[in-house]
């Protein structure tokens, strides 16, 4: 009888302590991972949160671990990896708060990774499923930025104005920034895409003009001058009776400068387009980022 009593005691005791250890260890692991994140040990923190995701059988804990892992990966600049890992939790919509956070983080990581179309898709999902979150400054800002990067200037302008309206309290400031937004996003300031084909055609019929059209007049003058010089050299040589030299050196150089000039005009137009659009997008993005600083 005494033995049975002892066995029962051992069983209960063992069972209790095991249960306790499991929950306590899970809690400790979360705390440890959080501590690593706070200490700036992002790689270790990312591994720890992934371990929690792997170990935990509770879907809520899994999503939390996944979101915290995203924070660590974002600090490491690994947006693509963070986005792919978040994909595991995007279909679990049992916990609305967590689901909307997952959608926002996916949109954010896609934006940071340069996948603007995909980012907009997640923002549209937020708009559809969580209208309250859609009204937040973070989502509005991201919408404005994504539209800027996609070249949707009018949409971006509307979101920027909405962000100003939501994030600022001073009417004077609002009016001033709205006016600045209208100026910045004005169609008169939109970068115009230059045609590479047109640049090539211009340089074909009038050397150097394609460069001028692309916005590089100095290079145009240099190219046209080079062609003129090489043609003159060919002419002088032939005048002197040096037909072979005139043909091989003079005309050889001329054809190099002529066809090279056409190719260069195409390339410079392409470059110019890239630079113009990148500059404009950067100006707009910086402005959008600065809006909430005005409040401070």
């Amino acid at each position, binding site marked *: 009888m005494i033995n049975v009593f002892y066995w029962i005691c051992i069983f209960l005791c063992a069972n209790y302590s095991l249960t306790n250890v499991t929950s306590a260890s899970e809690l400790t692991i979360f705390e440890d991972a959080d501590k690593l994140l706070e200490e700036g040990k992002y*790689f270790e923190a990312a*591994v720890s949160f*992934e*371990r929690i995701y792997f170990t935990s059988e509770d879907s809520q804990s899994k999503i939390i671990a996944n979101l915290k892992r995203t924070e660590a990966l974002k600090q490491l600049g690994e947006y693509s*990896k963070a986005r792919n*890992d978040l994909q595991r939790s995007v279909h679990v919509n049992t916990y609305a708060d967590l689901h909307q956070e997952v959608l926002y983080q996916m949109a954010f990581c896609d934006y940071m990774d340069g996948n603007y179309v995909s980012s907009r898709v997640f923002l549209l999902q937020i708009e559809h499923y969580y209208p309250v979150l859609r009204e937040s400054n973070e989502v509005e800002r991201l919408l404005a930025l994504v539209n800027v990067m996609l070249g949707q200037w009018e949409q971006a302008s509307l979101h920027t104005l909405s962000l100003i309206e939501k994030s600022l309290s001073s009417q004077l400031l609002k009016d001033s920034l709205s006016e600045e937004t209208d100026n910045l996003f004005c169609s008169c300031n939109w970068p115009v895409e230059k045609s590479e084909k047109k640049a090539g055609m211009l340089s074909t019929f009038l050397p150097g003009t394609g460069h001028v059209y692309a916005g590089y007049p100095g290079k145009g003058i240099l190219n046209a001058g080079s062609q003129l010089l090489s043609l003159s050299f060919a002419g002088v040589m032939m005048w002197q009776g*040096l037909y072979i*030299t005139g043909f*091989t050196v003079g005309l*050889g150089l001329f054809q190099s400068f002529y066809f090279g000039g056409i190719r260069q005009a195409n390339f410079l137009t392409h470059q110019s387009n890239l630079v113009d659009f990148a500059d404009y997008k950067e100006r707009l993005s910086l402005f959008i980022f600065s809006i909430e600083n005005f409040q401070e």
Partner: protein
Amino acid sequence: MLILRIFIFYFLLFWLVGFNYVISQNKGQFDHEISFARHLMGRGHYKEALFVLEDLEPGRNSQKDSLNFLLGWILYGQKDLETSAKYLTKVSNDSPFFHQSLFFAAYNHAYLNHTNISDELLSSFDLSSDSRLFYMRNFQYAGLALLDRDLEKFQMLNKKLNNDFILTQSEETNFVSYYGQIKNHPQKSVYLAGLMSMLVPGAGKIYAGKTSEGIANFLYTGALLATTYDLYTSFGVKNPFFIISAIISGVFYTGNIWGSMVAVKRVKNEFNDEIDQRILLDMHIPLRKLFPN
């Protein structure tokens, strides 16, 4: 006396339970970390998997094998083939991963151009009990013979491959095709290419198989030589323009001869590299089919 007996009994009982608990906890912890590392590998997070495995301290031999196999496999995934082979060869033949480790360690060495080590590894174990592994080894031997350009050995090994093993069927056909390409690949002479370019600029490059380069060589060397001749007939030998043109033409003419000789070697290397890459790919595909995980 009875109390003492009861005390000893429970003391031993607690000790036994406690000891087993600690052992099972350690084993459980190790297995859990191995599973976690596999999970990370499955998601392509090799760096994180390595980080997890680095901290593990295996106790039993089977744990050491699991650890070595996984480290080797991760490094293989990261294309660090030298270190991968080192870990994979540490896996003992008691391990369920032994054959996979053996074949992939041999493949890694083959990729690193250490075909002799690869051959040694494959021949160091008796695989006759498993017909699939035995056949795969012969297939790998055939690939190694092709990589070594030992065509006689390949012919001998190819007789052992009867093209009825589904995993290697198409690759065996490819091997025979590579054999033909290697055998029929013309052996071009470096000196003949040089001589041809000496007589007609660019001809050596055309002979080497670089036709467009040869035509370009012919055009610009010819143009320079013609200009030099033009200047010579108009101004004579002492004219500085002629001297400059002659020097430039000489440099280009010599360069055209040297370039043609190099082109023969370059074309030969390009052919060898391309064939080697194809052989290695065809050695690799059946291995991945035989050991999918």
